[in-house]
């Protein structure tokens, strides 16, 4: 029983991690006033780049960073469209969501002999579990504690990033300015804050985070990229960000909830309980729907979120 709980918590943390990265991306972009529903596309591209670079280079960290860079580049397109050219941000995001997976599959066929799935990364070239030696040293590798605390490095980094993001947003000059830009860009502008620059930085960072989220999936949770690997997790992260009230710590909590749903799916799939796996795998999405329907009315989004800023006038 205790072991089962350990397994569920462990899986929860593992599956929540890609969501946390991506949701943090949503937090930073939307707090600066740019709606980013393109997270899904950025996450997918990141997952592919992570897996591909990981496979060819054999270094998970280079792969991880490359995934962030790829997400950031795709986000740059979103920034150009929605910040510079005042495009409808949702429409631009939808386009990103088509470009991301499309590009991922195109590149996959190019680099993996026509396959839309990358070749699996050698187990030693995946993101490491840094605490492995400690648990092995204490011969606790299959214990309850190990199930929970012996995680891939990306898991720890994700939680550190939540704290870092909270600190940056609420305790630093940059964070205050980015929130001001998302609430009242004209006010920020009259105070000499460069609205466009801040929005560019935040949108690109959101892509970097989403790319890292994708790689956390393809380099740690599994060890390859397939077209269905991400399938909606970017949207779940988006929902987590909203459910988390546009705050890093709130988004983290929501991601853990959705991660738990995912954990339950995996866990139940491995037990003798007879539930069709298709029905089971609906669980995270159902929870998303219910949570959004019940809670979203109460959350407060940044006032200028989704509204292109145009200088002059008034």
């Amino acid at each position: 029983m205790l072991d089962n709980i350990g397994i569920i918590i462990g899986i929860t943390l593992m599956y929540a991690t890609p969501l946390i990265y991506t949701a943090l991306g949503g937090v930073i972009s939307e707090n600066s006033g740019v709606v980013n529903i393109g997270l899904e596309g950025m996450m997918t591209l990141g997952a592919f780049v992570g897996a591909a670079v990981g496979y060819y280079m054999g270094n998970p960290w280079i792969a991880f960073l490359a995934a962030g860079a790829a997400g950031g580049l795709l986000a740059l397109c979103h920034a150009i469209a929605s910040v510079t050219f005042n495009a409808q941000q949702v429409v631009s995001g939808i386009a990103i969501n088509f470009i991301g997976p499309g590009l991922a599959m195109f590149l996959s066929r190019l680099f993996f002999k026509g396959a839309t799935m990358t070749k699996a990364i050698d187990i030693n070239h995946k993101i490491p579990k840094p605490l492995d030696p400690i648990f092995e040293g204490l011969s606790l590798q299959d214990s309850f504690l190990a199930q929970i605390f012996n995680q891939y490095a990306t898991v720890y980094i994700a939680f550190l990033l939540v704290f870092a993001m909270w600190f940056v947003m609420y305790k630093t000059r940059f964070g205050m300015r980015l929130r001001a830009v998302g609430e009242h860009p004209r006010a920020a502008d009259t105070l000499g804050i460069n609205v466009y620059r801040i929005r560019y930085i935040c949108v690109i960072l959101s892509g970097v985070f989403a790319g890292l989220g994708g790689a956390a999936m393809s380099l740690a949770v599994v060890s390859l990229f397939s077209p269905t690997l991400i399938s909606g997790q970017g949207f779940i992260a988006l929902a987590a960000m909203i459910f988390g009230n546009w705050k890093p710590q709130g988004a983290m909590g929501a991601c853990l909830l959705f991660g738990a749903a995912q954990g339950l799916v995996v866990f139940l799939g491995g037990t003798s309980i007879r539930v069709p796996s298709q029905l089971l795998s609906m669980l995270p999405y159902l929870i998303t729907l219910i949570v959004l329907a019940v809670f979203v009315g109460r959350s407060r989004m940044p006032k200028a979120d989704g509204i292109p800023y145009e200088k002059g006038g008034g």
Partner: protein
Amino acid sequence: MQHIDFKSKVVEMKNITKVFGNVTANDQIHLTVHKGEVHALLGENGAGKSTLMNILYGLYRPTRGEIYINGKKTDIATPNIAIQQGIGMVHQHFMLVEPFTVVENIVLGRETTNFGGVLDMKKATEDVISLSEQYGLYVDPNAKVEDITVGMQQRVEILKALYRGADILILDEPTAVLTPQEIRELIEIIRNLTKEGKTIILITHKLKEIKQVADYCTIIRRGRHIDTVDVSAVTEEELAAKMVGREVSFDIEKKEKERGKVVLQIEGLTVKDNRGIEAVKGLSLEVYEGEILGVAGIDGNGQSELIEAITGLRPIEAGRVKMNGKDITHCKPKEIIDSKISTIPEDRQKRGLVLDFSVAENMVLENYAKEPFSKKGILNHGEISQFSKELIQTFDIRPKEETLKARILSGGNQQKAIIAREITNDPDLLITAQPTRGLDIGAIEYVHRALVEQRDKNRAVLLVSLELDEIMNVSDRIAVIYEGSIVGIVDAKEADENRLGLMMAGGGAEE
């Protein structure tokens, strides 16, 4: 006056011209302001005052012309340069970040930080407190801006400019959103600031305030400089004439008139506001034919809820409303309109017009379903535009083009369009809330005339306004509303501003 240093010209704008497309917003305007002076910039809406000040603040670049700050020619390309030159601006629509605290708003863009860009809010709070004490601008530094009153928010705006070292403060229509009490406090603040050597440029179209606080006044009309005058040497009437370009009468001509029978009867009305708190409490009031009943009161004493309840937009908790003897207490808005009540709503853009509909469509918002405007559910656009053309002619709505979107019209013309529609509906009772808010003198005169004309046609008019002058000028009887009840009704001829003011404040007898 005693604080003005005539030897030092802090702002000199010479031959400023600003062209937007083919519209000349400013045409060779000049403006000279001395240190320690309160300089009013007077003009009707759209005269070009704000454009001129936006140029001074670096939000627009002038097409032609030169600006000298403290005698030095300066190219103010961005607000940042303006701020460096000691110019601060308090915009009409506040530029405050609502979920931020007072301190955060004040320091934003000029934050005090420790190592690595980490905010030092303790130091910032201390700075703000000492600044606010220096100028007598008291604020709660840790309150969130969304929780404080509009008057407080304005102080935050002024502090924001002072924090950036502003010596020249531009205040854009600062009193438009304030209560009479807050206006008095603001005038006190302005005096304090000039005492400390600051210079104030006041954009306004309210003559009374200019007389109260300004030393000099520059009048702009249709983008041109008309005159710069010593305020103590001119009357309000002279200022108004210069602003509008013709004589304006403040006093509305009103014939003596006997009122007729009761039209609207409100008994013990109780209404809740959006937060579920009783905003109108057991209010009783009667309006007669052939009279204008003014409801005076400070904002937020239940005026909006009262009107929304009468017009069927807000549920009535208790009490009754009768129109021509018929009970309309829980009727739908449509039924209330059909019982011959017309409303000129408080927020003309939100409730009075559909901004993205054409003027013609807006003219039939209440009657589109009736013949001749539609038959069996099909609109007759010919009839609608014919009808609108007539109204546009009769009520002098400009531009004279019924296919334009209502959004394009100026505030005054939007209000004219609403008045045209509501009056043509031939009501027995005309309800108007803040009918002249944001309008300039010419348009105000027009609205007041229209109201008196309705009264002379033996209709009942209920006028709710926060402007005491307006109430006193136009009404026959004045009811004072305080905390959701009518605390007194006086005959307008015997009304006294001080006594009304006291009643509006709850009748506290010490003042």
